[in-house]
């Protein structure tokens, strides 16, 4: 029983739900700066503030996909600029592996993104968010890993 | 020291002596120059002045011929204008696949921009060539004060030529010290000589030559050495022209290969040196007859003495002078 919801006709006014983990010192500050400059970007991204991108446990990303998120974006300071000196070096290793592992397990690579966005790069935050939500809007809803898949299809193999 | 060789139109006409002296010196030091079969004119300023694609196509055909030649060598190019145009063509072909295919279409020949191009001066400035030249030197210019003139296309734009420093190049100066000449520290090493504008805009271009000669003279230059047939013709011919009106300058102009040839014992005729406008042979013959410079050898002697002293008492330090 395969799940091939991906490429079928995506209804145009479907809005993806995208979760973003943003580190407080750089990306979250960059996002605020984007607000300060009244930049505009799609509404689909909800940001969870974490002290450092190093705080983001790859299991949170799995949890997001499981609970129905259509895309996950992890953002942090540029390596070398981390407020906590080495936090993002660990982030980089963890998500270099998790990104490939998600892909290996069938998640479309565009659904999980990681980006370094500094406190001054408001434009980069807007562009990243815009690109991710457009990519995922084109991909359609994500049905992989999702609990809700059961409720809809009524199937259960308990 | 093996290169493909692109002489360029000047070396069989106004730059005859540059061709002869290059052949002589190359043979002397065992530098193999494989001339590109059936090469064509690189278009120099006229081509890029008329049309951007023409400026790339003319040199590209020569580069394609080098690839057909199949020796896989770097191309040594005596004339600065040809060298600059070839470098532009190689850089353009390597910049993008689209550009390379466009060039292939125009010249109707396969071309993959495999070979690199260097100017003849760089070939001689390399370690192996300098060592070979040193061995073959039989005469010294005994401190003849020489102003080395590089012109503009050899060293600019730096992004394309990537050769020496574009404000204060030294490679020709080093070669001159090899043959006993004393390089003059002057300021017009890379000022433009006006190139073809000496013909089609003489009123504006002539002062350029005058300034170069004036600054060389002010800094005590007894000779100017160049590495480009167009600079050589402009400097040599126009100096002769100034002197015809009023004898002001006495600075013969040479190709660096001519001076190297002379230092290797060549007869001026073999190098075509008698073909210059401003008489050139006398100054070199006179320099050969000069007493070898005193102070350089003595300094060497003194250094030798000091070395001995240190060797004698290596252990306890020399007491204070």
């Amino acid at each position, binding site marked *: 029983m395969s799940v091939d919801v991906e490429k079928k006709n995506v209804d145009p006014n479907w809005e993806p739900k995208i979760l973003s983990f943003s580190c407080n010192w750089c990306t979250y500050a960059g996002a605020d700066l984007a607000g300060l400059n009244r930049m505009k970007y799609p509404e689909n991204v909800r940001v969870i503030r974490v002290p450092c991108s190093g705080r983001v446990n790859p299991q949170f990303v799995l949890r997001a996909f499981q609970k129905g998120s259509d895309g996950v974006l992890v953002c942090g300071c540029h390596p070398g600029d981390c407020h906590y000196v080495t936090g993002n070096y660990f982030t980089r290793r963890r998500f270099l592996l998790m990104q490939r592992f998600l892909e290996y397990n069938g998640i479309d690579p565009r659904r999980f993104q990681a980006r370094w966005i500094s406190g001054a790069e408001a434009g980069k935050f807007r562009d990243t968010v815009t690109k991710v939500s457009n990519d995922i809007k084109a991909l359609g809803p994500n049905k992989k890993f999702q609990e809700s898949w059961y409720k809809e299809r009524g199937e259960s193999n308990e | 020291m093996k290169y493909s060789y692109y002489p360029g*139109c000047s070396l*069989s*006409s*106004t730059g*005859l002596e540059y061709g002869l002296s290059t052949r002589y010196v190359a043979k002397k030091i065992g530098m193999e120059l494989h001339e590109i079969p*059936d*090469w*064509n*004119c690189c*278009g*120099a*300023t*006229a*081509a*890029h*002045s*008329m*049309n*951007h*694609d*023409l400026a*790339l*196509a*003319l040199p590209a*055909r020569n580069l394609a011929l080098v690839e057909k030649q199949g020796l896989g060598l770097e191309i040594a190019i005596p004339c600065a204008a040809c060298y600059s145009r070839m470098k532009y063509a190689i850089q353009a072909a390597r910049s993008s696949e689209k550009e390379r295919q*466009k060039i292939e*279409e*125009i*010249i*109707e*020949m396969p071309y993959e921009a495999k070979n690199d191009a260097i100017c003849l001066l760089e070939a001689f400035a390399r370690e192996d060539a300098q060592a070979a030249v040193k061995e073959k030197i039989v005469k010294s210019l005994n401190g003849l004060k020489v102003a080395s003139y590089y012109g*503009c*296309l050899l060293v*600019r*734009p*730096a992004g394309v030529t990537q050769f020496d420093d*574009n404000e204060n190049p030294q490679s020709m100066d080093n070669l001159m010290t090899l043959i006993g000449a004393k390089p003059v520290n002057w300021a017009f090493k*890379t*000022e*433009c000589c*006006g*190139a*073809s*504008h000496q*013909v*089609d*805009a*003489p*009123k*504006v*271009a002539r*002062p*350029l030559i005058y300034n170069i000669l004036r600054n060389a003279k002010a800094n005590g230059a007894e000779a100017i050495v160049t590495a480009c047939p167009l600079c050589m013709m402009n400097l040599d*011919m126009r100096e002769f*022209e100034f002197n*015809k009106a009023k004898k002001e300058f006495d600075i013969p102009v040479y190709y660096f290969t001519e001076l190297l040839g002379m230092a290797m014992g060549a007869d001026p005729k073999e190098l*075509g040196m*008698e*073909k210059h*406008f401003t008489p050139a042979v006398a100054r070199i013959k006179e320099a050969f007859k000069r007493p070898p410079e005193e102070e350089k050898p003595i300094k060497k002697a003194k250094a030798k003495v000091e070395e001995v002293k240190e060797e004698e008492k290596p252990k306890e330090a020399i007491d204070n002078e």
Partner: protein
Amino acid sequence: MVERNLTEAIAKNKANIDAIQAKSGVDLKECYQCGKCSAGCSMAAGMDLKPREVVRYLQLGLWDDVLKSNSPWICASCHTCVARCPHNVDIPSLMEAVRQEAKRQGIVPVKEVDVFTNVFIDSVKKNGKLHDLMLTGMYNMKSGHLMQDAWAGAPMLKSGKVGLRPHTVKDKEAVRRLIKNSLKRGESK
């Protein structure tokens, strides 16, 4: 100097100036008019608009002045200006683009330079290599300076630097074809 109406000039010439920037790869806004290019330009003395002024006029939209100016023709493209420019403004490419655009519109402020270029290319088209005698001969005739540098003719002939017989390329046809291809492509761009 009549008062220049900038609103008009810029409105009228914006397209031309954008095209010239695209063709030469130069962004005029990068130049903050520091004058280092004019100061170092070897041919500046003969130019009616010095390099900085050419950029300034284009910045102000005064397109026709630049087209009519002799600077693009006098420029020896020795690259001193761009080597020293704080913002790397490629003035030689700008001059070349303006020169080719002026030629296309038939404006030739310095006839000799245009004649020299054409005679040069004709000689290459004919023999595949440059024939100096033909170059100076045809140039003197077409430019009207019949006796220019004639004094040098004799010594050159005597020393064999200039020969009657031109040096030619065996596959002259290939060179002619590539010249035709380039020029044909040139018009289309």
